[in-house]
């Protein structure tokens, strides 16, 4: 259950639905709410929402990992976030225009993705969900590659080994095991590399994620589990997924867990670098919980007004990842208006390029149904391909007959 179809949005007002909703609300556990939601959580933070640098005991271990960051690097991170948001906005628009069947927006999660994505080395390997458009950007994946599956012309289709960026994974949490296995292989090879697995707060309920935590701990695998806790798994808040803060789970599996301000790109960069460094040094897995917020809908088929309050979304708007870095750059003289204007033009040009590329994307050939089902071929696929081709050809010969 992940990406719902447009058809599923039709309202069904059965009494059963009402009862279920009432029961859920009555059963809401007050203790869990107090523990996970209401109190402001402790986060590793390097930039406040106002854009001020933070130095405190919580971030002392991580701050050295961004000590080398120059003003130019900061501008680069800012550019990555702006370009990613522009691409994401273009994709949402393309869905509204009927060019894409569906889009899963990353709006609000740019810092978590760019911060962690820019922490990676070329030799590292990424296992994404279906929302890691910002990480894909950092890996150099052509943005238009990401749109094929949402347009319905393929199920991904890119070569994961070109950018060490695996295919998007839709069934929730499965990729954490692939990342763990890949990391086991990296360790066997003695390679100087690490693996990062992305997942969300909803995925943390999946058995596969627990198994990935455990396998990686048992084998001391070089993998970073990067959870973007965006507070919502479609319509279900984190109280429906967990009773203890997510990052604390790592302790039970025997490796460290850190909660970072997921809207602070610098903190995400620092914490992920720290975790990757541990992995490459042979110190095993780490869980990073990037505390962030899904500003938009789960996908373009979703309607968040049915299940969450405007006030909540508004409160998160003031923590916007892009605005806070902009405030920092302006306050420190790290960028001027010319930089922002130039970036605006660049992002618009990228949006136009993406739009044109999607519209020009051809439908696949019908016979592609039968391609790549097997690497070594399969008699039944061959038989059905031939039968279907003959069936299609029968219409052509019928037309010729007229």
């Amino acid at each position, binding site marked *: 259950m992940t990406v719902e179809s447009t058809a599923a949005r039709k309202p069904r007002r059965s009494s059963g639905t009402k009862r279920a909703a009432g029961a859920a609300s009555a059963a809401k556990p007050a203790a869990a709410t107090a523990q996970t939601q209401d109190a402001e959580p402790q986060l590793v933070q390097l930039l406040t929402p106002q854009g001020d640098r933070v130095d405190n005991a919580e971030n002392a271990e991580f701050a050295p990992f961004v000590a080398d960051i120059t003003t130019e690097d900061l501008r680069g991170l800012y550019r990555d976030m702006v370009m990613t948001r522009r691409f994401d906005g273009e994709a949402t628009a393309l869905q509204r225009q009927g060019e894409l069947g569906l889009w899963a927006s990353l709006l609000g999660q740019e810092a978590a993705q760019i911060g962690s994505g820019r922490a990676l080395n070329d030799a590292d390997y990424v296992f994404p969900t279906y929302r890691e458009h910002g990480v894909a950007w950092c890996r150099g994946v052509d943005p238009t590659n990401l749109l094929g599956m949402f347009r319905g012309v*393929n*199920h*991904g*289709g*890119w*070569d*994961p*080994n070109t950018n060490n960026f*695996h*295919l998007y*994974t839709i*069934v929730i949490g*499965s990729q*954490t*095991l*692939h*990342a*763990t*296995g*890949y*990391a*086991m*292989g*990296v360790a*066997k*090879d003695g390679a100087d590399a690490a693996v990062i697995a992305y997942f969300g707060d909803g995925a943390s309920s999946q*058995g*596969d994620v627990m*198994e*990935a935590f*455990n*396998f990686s701990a*048992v084998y001391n695998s070089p993998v970073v589990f990067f959870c973007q806790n965006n507070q919502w798994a479609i319509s279900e808040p984190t109280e429906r997924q967990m009773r203890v803060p997510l990052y604390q789970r790592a302790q039970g599996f025997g490796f460290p867990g850190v909660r970072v301000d997921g809207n602070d790109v610098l903190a995400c960069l620092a914490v992920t670098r720290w975790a990757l460094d541990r992995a490459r040094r042979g110190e095993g897995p780490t869980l990073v919980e990037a505390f962030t917020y899904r500003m938009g809908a789960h996908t373009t088929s979703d309607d968040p007004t049915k299940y969450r309050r405007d006030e909540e979304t508004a409160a998160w708007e003031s923590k916007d990842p892009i605005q806070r870095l902009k405030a920092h750059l302006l306050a420190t003289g790290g960028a001027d208006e010319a930089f922002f204007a130039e970036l605006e033009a660049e992002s618009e040009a990228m949006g136009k390029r993406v739009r044109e590329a999607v519209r020009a994307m051809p439908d696949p050939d019908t016979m592609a149904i039968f*391609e*790549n*089902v*097997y*690497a*070594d071929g*399969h*008699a*039944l*696929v061959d*038989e059905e391909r031939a039968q279907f081709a003959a069936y299609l050809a029968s219409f052509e010969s019928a037309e010729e007959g007229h």
Partner: protein
Amino acid sequence: MAVEKMSIAKALNESLRKALEQDPKVLIMGEDVGKLGGVFRITDGLQKDFGEERVIDTPLAESGIVGTAIGLALRGYRPVVEIQFDGFVFPAYDQIVTQLAKMHARALGKIKLPVVVRIPYGGAIGAVEHHSESPETLFAHVAGLKVVSPSNATDAYWMLQQAILSDDPVIFFEPKRRYWDKGEVDTEAIPGELHRSRVVREGADLTLAAYGPMVKVCLEAAAAAAEEGKSIEVLDLRSMSPVDFDGIQASVEKTRRLVVVHEAPVFLGVGSEIAARITERCFYHLEAPVLRVGGFHAPYPPARLEDEYLPGLDRVLDAVDRSLAY
């Protein structure tokens, strides 16, 4: 010495040993596959000789085993995974069906998933529940997977070699009640194609088609029928995906009658698909409808009832008689 008499279990063990020797990327993973050598001792001695890095005892979590095997395959390894018993595979079913089977196609062929999942299957060993099932249809139904099962020691040796060499994921069903049956294995012979059936007894009046543990039952049935003057051909199907329909067709065009036998439930089983396709292919050759003999649409019964549940000599001969009576 190229030809040696050995059990199916030993042949599988020798086959794994050879694969580990030939390709440093081959890994063995599973529960208890290390020091113990697996609950059926199929991996006996392999960890001692190839080390814990290549013969890997895993946590007790089937989805985790297959999920990490996929990751290792993406890294360039060729994992051979052991699922301890047929009924224990379902925690891994999602990883096998949703991930392993489809990943090659999703990448438009740019990545390969050479993973073998070995599953001891079938009943007649007097076990408790979940230790005697035949779930092969549930895998044969999934595009992207190949599904095979040897019935004898030679095939156990060679088909496992071929499965490991395959760039596609292969679900390798091992007939656990036959593990200790012995046969001659030629470890230097050139094997036949992995997905071809084989005529194991020639006959003229009817074809019995089976795979895995039921091949022996069918051979016994053919011998018994011969005493009554009936000439039965026995076809070892060997592969359930793809099924060698050409091989079955050739046999049926000769004998004009077909009975398919498996332990798995008859309803929507491999036999049902064979019946449908052979009826299409051989409609004017058939003297009787294709009959199926197999398990019932009921949970696998307690061990004291399994002799009644499993197709035995009499149930196979009953179907032979019914077919010949048309």
